[in-house]
């Protein structure tokens, strides 16, 4: 029988995204031998062309036929309907989904850490305060701003979170003329328009070039290195430093533990499907919320018969997506003077505006007490002309062709401009949103896939609708000829967190305050799994910050 290949190191990090990158980088910098296991391949700026086909074919992402999730969604009749999906795979490459993020980098606010204390319980929701405060994480937000690079400009507003520095280290990115329209409209409505911070460089940092302003951001990989992916901003340098090795095409399938329940190694399948064992003193899991829960659940042993850290059935619980909605403002160009038309047609600079006036909603007409609200980000969707036109082949179910189709396409692209906003609110954790192992589906390596149940709380929809209405109001104030918005009840494919909530009580949490798995002394989770709630912003910035915090906590034990 062929013996298992064994590799030894000080620290093994599973996953190379925003959860894994900081830990690997910091521990390697401190002189420890670090191995990062990444399921995907290594790609860099030279590979990232502005090619819509890369996204349409899900290149750099896992394919449904290889790996999938079972998705259980509420069907409206009180039951859940199951399907299989690949929508949750954000980036199957070094750096993970951060290669394809839009990088809206908002910090959380102090009340996000004390949701229960500040706003009280909500029936049917598992709301909990965090075991740390905003003040504990603030230095790490600042560290992220400097190390991975955040651009923006601080302006004072009623919900501005406390900061230890006066402003971001990088100036704001060039702005689209529409931002000026937005500021005027928002001010007139009595709102507080904010320049939005982005994890995108506005000037050169070491080997990374500033944004090239192609207008193809979002789901496109970054060609200049400006986008703060974990690979571009951390792992490139970590590997050059000599103490960090990234092993690609390494699919981790089991964490091994000793008789005391502590982690001793992980097993992975290499590119040839051969099993390899990596033994390490510290093991850090950062595979994205769903997959981290899945790996812990799958890692059964004598000391952890129900999965590692699952002695109180907390693994996979309290997952949360991002609640909210989206809206549009459509401007008819032929109703505008030439100069205004020209402004709307500009491509390249960013919209980069946000409103946080309703981060806490205190409106007796809508809610009988103050409730946690959300953020509106006014943004551009990354261009996807092929997808846009595909949808136009049909009109009310009728197939269009010939000149009629051509006229519709031409009109959509040249007669109007569509601007978008996205609303982000808390997706309240409930007993109906969680990760378990599916009993039937397996991936291409033969491991049970994760079953993701995505029940939502009705409160989320009410909050989201309140804020979506504000976004529509702003679009109308900007002069949009058509303005509308909708709330989400479906899960977003990205921005999922939780599942391994951190806390002080092992009976109600999976991780301790330092994100170490309860019941172990050397197994940590450093992705977004730890979050009891996601905050009313995209969570990436906070995941980065907490991962740097976890790195410090691990270093204290070494």
């Amino acid at each position, binding site marked *: 029988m062929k013996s298992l290949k064994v590799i030894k190191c000080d620290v093994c990090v599973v996953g190379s995204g925003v959860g894994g990158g900081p830990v690997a980088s910091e521990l390697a910098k401190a002189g420890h031998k670090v191995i990062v296991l990444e399921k995907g391949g290594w790609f860099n700026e030279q590979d990232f062309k*502005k090619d819509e*086909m890369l996204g349409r074919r899900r290149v750099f992402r896992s394919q449904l036929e290889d790996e999938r999730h079972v998705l259980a969604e509420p069907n409206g009749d009180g039951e859940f309907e199951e399907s299989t999906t690949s929508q949750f795979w954000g980036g199957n490459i070094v750096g993970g989904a951060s290669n394809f*993020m839009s990088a809206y980098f908002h910090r959380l606010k102090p009340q996000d850490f004390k949701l229960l204390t500040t706003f009280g319980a909500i029936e049917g929701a598992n709301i909990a305060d965090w075991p740390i405060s905003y003040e504990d994480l603030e230095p790490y937000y600042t560290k992220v701003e400097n190390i991975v690079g955040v651009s923006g400009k601080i302006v004072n507003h009623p919900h501005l979170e406390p900061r230890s520095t006066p402003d971001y280290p990088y100036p704001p990115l060039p702005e689209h003329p529409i931002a000026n329209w937005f500021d005027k409209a928002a001010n007139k409505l009595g709102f507080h328009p904010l320049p939005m911070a982005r994890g995108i460089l506005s000037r050169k940092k070491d080997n990374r070039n500033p944004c090239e302003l192609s207008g193809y951001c979002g789901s*496109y990989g970054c060609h200049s290195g400006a986008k703060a992916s974990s690979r571009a901003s951390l792992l490139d340098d970590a590997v050059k430093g000599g103490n960090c090795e990234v092993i690609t095409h390494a699919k981790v399938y089991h964490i091994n533990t000793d008789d005391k329940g502590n982690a001793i190694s992980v097993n992975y399948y290499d590119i040839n499907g051969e099993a390899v064992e990596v033994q390490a003193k510290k093991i850090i899991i950062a595979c994205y919320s769903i997959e981290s829960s899945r790996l812990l659940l799958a890692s059964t042993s004598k000391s952890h018969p129900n999965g590692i850290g699952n002695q109180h059935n907390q693994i996979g619980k309290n997952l949360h997506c991002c609640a909210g909605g989206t809206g549009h403002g459509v401007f008819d160009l032929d109703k505008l003077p030439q100069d205004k038309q020209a402004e709307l047609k500009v491509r390249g600079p960013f919209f980069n505006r946000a409103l946080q006036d309703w981060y806490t909603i205190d409106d007796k007409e809508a809610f009988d007490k103050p409730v946690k609200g959300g953020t509106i980000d006014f943004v551009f969707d*990354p261009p996807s002309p092929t997808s846009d036109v595909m949808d136009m082949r049909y009109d009310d179910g009728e197939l269009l*062709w010939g*000149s009629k189709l*051509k006229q519709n396409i*031409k009109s959509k692209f040249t007669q109007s401009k569509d601007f978008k906003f996205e609303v982000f609110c808390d997706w309240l954790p409930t007993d109906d949103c969680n990760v378990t192992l599916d009993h039937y589906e397996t991936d291409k390596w033969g491991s049970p896939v994760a079953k993701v149940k995505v029940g939502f709380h009705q409160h989320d929809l009410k909050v989201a609708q309140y804020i979506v209405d504000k976004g529509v109001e702003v679009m109308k104030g900007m002069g949009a000829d058509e303005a509308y918005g909708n709330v989400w009840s*479906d899960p977003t494919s990205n921005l999922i967190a939780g599942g391994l909530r951190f806390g002080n009580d092992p009976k109600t949490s999976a991780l301790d305050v330092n994100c170490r798995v309860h019941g172990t002394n050397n197994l940590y989770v450093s992705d977004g799994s730890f979050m009891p709630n996601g905050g009313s912003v995209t969570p990436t910035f906070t995941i980065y910050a907490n991962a740097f915090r976890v790195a410090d906590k691990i270093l204290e034990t070494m």
Partner: protein
Amino acid sequence: MKIVHSKSAGDAHYLSKSEKPQISSFKPHWTTGINRRDFIKSSLAVSLLANMAACKPNISSNTNAKDTTKLISDIPTVKIEKYTFSEDQHLDLDAIFMCLFPDDGDGPSANDLNVTTYLEWAMSDERNIDDGDPEFIAKGIGWLNQLSNDNIGKIFREATLKQQNELITETVGSEAGKNWVSILLYYVVEALTLDPFYGGNTNQVGWNWLEHQGGFPHPIQGKTYRDFS
């Protein structure tokens, strides 16, 4: 269990299965009512097709029978190793595409977009092959020509523009015909909007018409979506 595709905040659209008609919905009204996949696999259907082709002496039933290099444009950036369609089918496709995306004085036509050549290249894509598109398109050409012969006594490409429009209108009147035309439009749209590197959108004529600014850098040799797939 169904397959779903969902939204992604701040993200671009992925290729949705709904962009192509579901194979199981294909049911040619001039066949015996079996679905597309069954139709292709069925020996009965094969023999029906063979009979159909035999009725049309000008239409080749062997899709790789001839070297058609001279009939389609060169694509300097991507290489077509092997043609899927015959010389006759290229001529048929040219006519069909010009009907679907005509030279009407407003923007590029299918010919301007190099759609037939683009289609040839797209037919070498494993995903499109797995979807059954090469067979489906080839067979549909035969069916359209049969319909044309039945209606006006000549094949589609020999019909007048008015007759061609009437034939397409009749074709999309059935669910099966609608699916087939929809597949062809799928490739017209790709030829209109994808990077010129892939053979359509010649000199960015599609993007220019739509006042769309393509991204930079463009795909290059060795860094296309197929190289990474």
